[in-house]
């Protein structure tokens, strides 16, 4: 199944007759070569027909999505976003300059909701590297919804960002309070320079007398070094429960198992103990930080 097939089949089950009627006509227009102007109008009009609520995909829809594109977090999409992406993917000659122009024009006139859908579409387009600069605009945005659409929940940055843009996007999660653990492919693209930037930020925060965001430690991976380990130990000694849990996970990733063992032995908080025990057992992927994210509610798939 292609990404478009996944979208169309999800929409089949979720749009009522009136919505479906509009969508089919809009899609036919796009496929018959609607000009850029009309295409922009259709993307906007979608909000007057498609529901804004979460798509809430079933398990089988999720696995179809993952099979169509590794790293596709369909569970983070709304029905409206799915409609919009389906319209984008229905554009004729999408791999040609004409297709690129249509997408760029759509971005230029987009409102926030349209922009989120467009950023989410980028990894699904043919020749996605054409849109690296555009995705970077999302990463440069100060609006968290746009940033998350461009950086979290999409495989685009891990696959196509250059090293500098990648590090900037990852570190920016902390500044804009976007969930770093949701940056797809983060664990496969850790490197010493990212760890260095994270540790400089730790020193800056300490000088300012501010707490360290528990997710910052994700960036260290196995590149913590002596400087990183010293900071992690300090966090274990002085930090809040969430901070200690984050530092414990990072110790596991730095393969500092003796220190982690010691931290566990002196830990009394049951929540932190549980995280540290799992870390000792090797469960310390960046997704483990979801347990420390107060805004995170596990998604229950519709069956």
């Amino acid at each position, binding site marked *: 199944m292609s990404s478009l097939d996944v979208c169309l089949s999800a929409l089949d089950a979720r749009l009522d007759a009136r919505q479906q009627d509009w969508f089919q006509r809009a899609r036919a227009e796009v496929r018959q070569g609607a000009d850029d102007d009309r295409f922009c109008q259709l993307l906007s009009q979608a909000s007057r027909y498609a529901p804004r609520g979460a798509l809430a995909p079933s398990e089988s829809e999720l696995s179809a999505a993952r099979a169509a594109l590794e790293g596709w977090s369909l569970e983070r999409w709304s029905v409206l976003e799915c409609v919009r992406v389906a319209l984008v993917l229905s554009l004729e000659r999408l791999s040609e300059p004409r297709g690129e122009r249509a997408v760029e024009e759509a971005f230029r006139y987009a409102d926030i909701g349209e922009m989120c859908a467009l950023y989410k579409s980028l990894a699904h387009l043919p020749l996605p590297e054409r849109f690296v600069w555009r995705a970077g*605009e999302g990463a440069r945005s100060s609006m968290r919804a746009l940033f998350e659409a461009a950086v979290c929940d999409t495989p685009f940055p891990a696959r196509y960002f250059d090293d500098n843009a990648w590090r900037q996007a990852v570190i920016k999660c902390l500044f804009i309070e976007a969930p770093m653990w949701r940056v797809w492919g983060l664990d496969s693209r850790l490197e010493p320079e990212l760890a260095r930037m994270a540790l400089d930020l730790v020193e800056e925060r300490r000088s300012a007398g501010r707490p360290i965001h528990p997710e910052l430690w994700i960036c260290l991976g196995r590149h913590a070094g002596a400087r990183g380990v010293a900071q992690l130990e300090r966090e274990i000694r002085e930090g809040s429960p969430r901070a200690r849990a984050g530092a414990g996970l990072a110790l596991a990733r730095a393969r500092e198992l003796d220190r982690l063992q010691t931290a566990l032995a002196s830990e009394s908080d049951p929540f932190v103990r549980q995280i540290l025990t799992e870390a000792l057992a090797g469960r310390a992927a960046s997704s483990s930080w979801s347990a420390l994210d107060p805004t995170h509610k596990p998604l229950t798939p519709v069956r």
Partner: protein
Amino acid sequence: MRFFDPHIHMISRTTDDYEAMARAGIRAVIEPAFWIGQPRTTLGAFVDYFSQILGWERFRASQFGIAHYCCIGLNSKEANNEALAREVLEILPRFAFKEGVVAIGEIGYDEISAAEERAYVWQLEFARKHDMVVMVHSPHRDKKRGIQRSIAVAREVGLPMEKLVVDHNNEETVKDVLDAGAWAAFTIYPHTKMGSERMCEIVKRYGPRQIIVDSSADWGVSDPLGVPKTAKLMLERGVPPEHVEQTTWSNALAAYSQSGQIDVEALLTTPVIDQRALFSDNSVLRGQAPRVDAPVPN
């Protein structure tokens, strides 16, 4: 006391802010050119923005007894749109020499990308060639490296260090800037950047030389009274009054009056407000009686 807030984006602030600022003793402000919270897509948007900070905003400030200067420049974030950046740099000289432009700024790095560096170097060279002051915006992410690189690149271009103001410093970066001989500015933000308490400690530790306090108030959560509030706290915490005066008034004046655009004598006299004045037939009034000959309370 009188204060100079040498970094504030007044186009995002209300007339209530202007009144409160004048009441708190702020006599002069500098509005550096920056982005507007989201990227612009056309050259025309920049042209109108530069005209606004040079024109209507300068007038608006004057209606509250505040002298308004500005910096012209292409900010780092929007330098990443290279096609548009080239167009902006092409028209930048048309605005850079206007009355009241005290520096090229705020320029520098955001993501520390190659495109940002190209725009930064171009503007540094322009500033050096025309003997202008430069206001550098330092990045949020990778700040220490970003500041070190801003200074190194400015030095390479040949900009005299006394013409360089590096803004948004913190405890980790201040030494590099002072050692370079540049001006180290600090932004007082309620939640990020620098708080007033920390600012007191920095002035106690490093002394007042080359140190400048500003608010950088804009469209985000920020405080247009950051400078006077910090001055008050510094006095309460035992910072000598002359050090407070230097960091909240005379250092900024010394740095930016190198432009020749600040009439220091006029600034020292008590401003008198005449709200009957018009700008392009437009007034700041909305049916109120104009304040005329009202000295700014201090």
